[in-house]
């Protein structure tokens, strides 16, 4: 600790004294211990758990047994729908595609608010409501909307020309997944409104106005002026989305509990842990760790490649 210095911002050097050390330790000890225990230890433990399973109240190493179980279900699916990881992977990728589309739509929503569309102040506040209202509450509202006593199931029956009585689209394998996606679209329509708003507001008015005086259309303004100027935010948010590819899920747990063909990878992992009662007796949580390890490796590689690709395509605008 001999080269401890204070007043770094002014570049001044002071002699180390025990008060400084005590001060630094007092501010760092809690977050560092918390991090070591609940992040570092947990992650290392998770890696070990991927190669273990419980037996007679303790855990034993089983090599790649958990991974084999997962691969088997990825390749052949499962007769038990809640363990059908093949279907869960397909649903996850579908949800991810919807999320990417909504990411783009969310950007447009923020752009129009930035362009001061009529009532933009009210929209800016109202569009933040999905982030404030509990998902549980939204889930109940949506379930009631899908209830057989409401008009919506009848509407779907007519739209699809069904020859049977549709009780609830959320409890019908043909519609459940579509309804989960619809719920996702509804709730993520104004996604990232604060982050986009912050980035757009930094764009100098003079740049946009001079382009408008030159007769540039709004679409060209969006893609050729605004987007390059908020490129770092775009890259960051899109990379975060890509990195979270296997975490893509709608309100599956609250709306269907993964039933009726709506299971996703992240919901499968969540439900297996939620059902666990004793980690020294429940085998499935060790499979969750194995699946998590696989997904982490793949998504890290994907995120790195994607970020590299995006950064190589557009040159960042400095302003």
């Amino acid at each position: 600790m001999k080269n401890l210095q204070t007043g770094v911002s002014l570049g001044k050097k002071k002699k180390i004294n025990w008060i400084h050390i005590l001060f630094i330790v007092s501010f760092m000890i809690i977050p560092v211990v918390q991090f070591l225990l609940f992040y570092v230890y947990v992650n290392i433990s998770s890696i070990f758990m991927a190669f273990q399973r419980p037996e007679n109240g303790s855990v034993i190493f089983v090599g790649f047994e958990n991974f084999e179980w997962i691969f088997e279900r990825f390749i052949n699916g499962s007769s038990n729908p809640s363990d059908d990881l093949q279907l869960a992977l397909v649903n996850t990728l579908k949800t991810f595609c919807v999320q990417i589309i909504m990411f783009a739509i969310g950007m447009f929503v923020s752009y129009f608010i930035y362009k001061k569309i009529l009532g933009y102040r009210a929209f800016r506040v109202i569009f933040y409501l999905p982030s404030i209202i509990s998902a549980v509450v939204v889930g109940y509202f949506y379930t009631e909307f899908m209830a057989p006593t409401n008009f919506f199931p009848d509407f779907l029956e007519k739209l699809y020309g069904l020859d049977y009585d549709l009780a609830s689209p959320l409890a019908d394998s043909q519609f459940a997944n579509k309804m989960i996606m619809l719920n996702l679209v509804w709730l993520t329509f104004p996604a990232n409104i604060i982050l986009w708003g912050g980035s757009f507001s930094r764009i100098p008015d003079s740049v946009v106005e001079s382009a408008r005086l030159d007769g540039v259309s709004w679409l060209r303004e969006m893609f050729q002026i605004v987007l390059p100027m908020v490129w770092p935010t775009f890259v960051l948010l899109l990379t975060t989305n890509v990195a979270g590819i296997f975490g893509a899920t709608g309100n599956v747990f609250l709306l269907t509990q993964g039933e009726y063909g709506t299971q996703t990878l992240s919901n499968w992992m969540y439900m297996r842990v939620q059902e666990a009662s004793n980690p020294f007796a429940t085998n499935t949580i060790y499979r969750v760790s194995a699946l998590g390890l696989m997904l982490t490796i793949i998504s890290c590689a994907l995120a790195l490649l994607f970020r590299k690709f995006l950064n190589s395509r557009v040159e960042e605008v400095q302003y």
Partner: protein
Amino acid sequence: MFARHRHLIRRTVAEQITRAIVFVIFCVFAFTYLYLIFWCFYSGLRDYYSIAEKPFGFSKIYFSHYIEVFTTLEASGSSFFEMILNSLYFSFLGPLLCIFITSQLAYVTSKYRFFGAGGVYFIVLIVITLPIYGTQSAMYKLLYSIGFLNSRLMLLTSLNGFSIYYMYFYAFFKNLSWSYAEAAELDGANEWQIYYKVMFPQALTMFGALFLMLWISDWNQYGTALIYLPKMPTLAVGIYQFGIDMMYNNRSDLLYAACFLSMLPPLILFIVCNNALMSNVSLGGIKE
């Protein structure tokens, strides 16, 4: 200069049509979000027979449901009051401590040069960008082993300084002039006094905005609490569990009254502080 030419910028017909269409779409979405709140409030006033018959209809209203919630609603042996207390404990105290500890960590690592200070920044960068899946099971195993499940000690897991919030504070303190500290030091203040009386008060606006964001998110959070605190339900978890129990005891009127009441605190805070929340988070947001 450009302000003078604003009147010269004319919108084309295509642009006007686009804006009109976008406005209508915005209105539709905005209406559904507002209607959700109204529906929740109104359904809490209706009787459960009429809700079951027509969930989006109108019927006689009973204001007594909003009082009955406090006496009747129960989940995992916890009353509505206990759920509110649990929510306040985990969702209010937790974020408060988290943001406070994060600000301290960011301060020492941005203003003091010592072995490991730069490492903290690097570690946080890795933590927030690295997508890690499936660690809930290891966390569950750890909490089970140390007896934190369904315990107030779960609050200790909130004392996380290595999160995205560190970046906001780090950027703030990094740009904050050290001359304030030097002036206080000349007046005889020690390191703690410099932080608590001079430096920290300057970060209070950001502290408030970040705390508000984290508090709202934790207040509504049901996923983590349902795994680790099922027998000590917060409002979000309690309402979820009551909804499940409702399959056997149909009181959807109470459920929706409880939903509306749980929605109120974040809604009121948001209405009061939305300008501060949006502008401060934007200003302290991603640095480009």
